[in-house]
């Protein structure tokens, strides 16, 4: 009898372990939904113009530090906006990284959307102007359920890629 109770106790333990290791299932998005992911790193333009140093100024510098121009370190924040038709899915102003605000700004956002045809617009402003975008792309995308549409900024072509 005692042995039977032991077997039952260990059996219940196994059931708890077995069940909670797979159940209940987790649905991150509904079956009809999909995700649009925006992910890129991009450095905003510098907040001031670079200045060319005069020969006299260069001469005052140690030989190993004689750069022809002097630029402010700080960069503009990067403003990004993602729209589907007229719906704004994601809009943010991303601060440059680094304690001198001289690094890249990192954009990362995953937005759940309904599957179907979307007129996607992605725009980015890296020059600090208040209106309009320095880079923008529009695409008509048929998003199937469960799809992960990735939007990246290609530094070589200086354009957005919708994958």
């Amino acid at each position, binding site marked *: 009898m005692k042995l039977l109770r032991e077997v039952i106790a260990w059996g219940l333990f196994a059931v708890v*372990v077995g069940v909670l290791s797979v159940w209940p299932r987790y649905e*991150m998005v509904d079956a009809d939904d999909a995700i649009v992911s925006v992910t890129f790193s991009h450095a905003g333009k510098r907040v001031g113009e670079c200045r060319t140093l005069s020969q006299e100024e260069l001469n005052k510098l140690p030989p190993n530090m004689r750069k022809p121009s002097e630029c402010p370190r700080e960069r503009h924040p990067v403003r990004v906006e993602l729209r589907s038709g007229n719906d704004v899915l994601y809009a943010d102003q991303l601060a440059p990284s680094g304690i001198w605000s001289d690094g890249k700004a990192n954009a990362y956002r995953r937005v759940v959307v309904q599957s179907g045809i979307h007129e996607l617009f992605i725009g980015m402003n890296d020059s600090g102007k208040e209106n309009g975008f320095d880079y923008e792309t529009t695409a008509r995308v048929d998003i199937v359920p469960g799809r992960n549409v990735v939007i990246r900024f290609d530094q070589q072509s200086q354009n957005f890629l919708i994958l």
Partner: protein
Amino acid sequence: MIERVHSLGRGAFELLRRPLSRAFDSEQNPLNYLGALTIYFCWIVLISGIWLLIFFRTSVSTAFESVEYLTHEQWYLGGVMRSLHRYASDALIITILLHVIKEFVFNRYRLNRWFNWVTGIPLVWMIFPLGISGYWLVWDELALYVAISSAELLDWVPIFTDSMAGNFMSDDVLSDRFFTLMAFLHLIGLPIFLVFGIWLHVFRLNGPRINPPRRMMAATLLCMLVLSAIYPAVSHEKADLAMTTQGLRFDWFYLHVYPLIQAWSPGWVWTLLVGISVLLTIAPWAPPARKTTVAVVDLDNCNGCKRCVDDCPFGAVEMVPRTDGTSYSHQAAVDESLCISCGICVGACPTATPFRSRSALVPGIDVPNRSAADIRQDIIDQAESPAGEPRVMVFACRDDRQTEAIRKAGANVVTVRCMAHLQPSFLDFVLSRNHADGVLLLGCEDGNCNYRLGADWMEARIARERDPRLRKRTDTSKIGMAWKTPLSDISGPARKLDAFREALRRGEGEA
């Protein structure tokens, strides 16, 4: 307030303890070996993991296939090992959780036990990344979800310049280096820290229970094997970065916090995790517990025999060179920062015998708040007004409702700090001086000794296997231990007393 929380917690813990007490002898009850079981599960995870490692390929393109090979082609061994690896990892989360709850509700984390409590918290912080990184390595849909969510969580911490999560968005940016890092953490880095952490967690204890009894080990392994055979662990579909993950078979033991990353935000999840950790860390001092008096050494009666050192469950007594000029080489010394005044050292001291008549009963080591002389006097006083027939002298290790219940049920009760606080000659003293017809030791139930080793030492002393041994002339059939079968099978102290009395009447008490 905190005592109320402990009391409520003990009540809730009883709901689990009671049915398990009916199913298991105290020696086989998993609730008495939660720490040891956790370590045993770690062994299962380690050994099964070594087998998996032999066949595992550490790259994005081959990891999934190598795990699939193990699961399906080599199901008879690799598949079983994978399932064992998975289920033992899950099972140890249950034992850790119960271990933490038990130590908390039985108030075994404050005063000088704070060190074991606090050093346990980093272990939990190591166990979870260890388990989670294991899911990552399979590189199926669940792995992709775990990778992205973990990266989102880490990205919130302002120490990375680039977004880590962005690396899991498309195949062209995903590199094997992430796998190498994860494999290093899962296979080498975290396990090394974990082993060191476990050592730190227990090294201050005397005779820590590292291993459960062999029978329990066999039963545990069998349990995991049967589960692995009936319901083998399998992968989801291979990770596809172009698709989102849906309908995941979720391991809630390790991933329970992950849905919160999406539902709240990584920042709030960090706040939750760090907040819980901080609360647990400060728990031993919130509120500060009242410091008890510690054991005191009397050099006139200490001959440096070292038995107190051997028996102290917390390593609070050590031998130091003699300071009083006598011919003994060493003397006992108590570390106040470790002593919790359990009195087990007194029970180990050969001089703590109540038969001493020429001099006052001052043992070589004693606890001032319940001295050996007090206990002897209490026995003599109690014996003057015997309660019930046959006369039973009950030694109880705490003065609570259960002790009161047995007092009301008709027995003379003498309280001690712990069962092993009693030097065995006290049992001889009660019986040979006819202070009672029998002795019932009402120790902590189910062998769940509040001071870890009290029941074990007392059993060994009565069985004459450990010094100081019970004298041969003492009839052990007149000594009952409430935590041992058959008395442990009987619920309630009053019913235990009745059963013991009945056995005494029949002349077949037990020890």
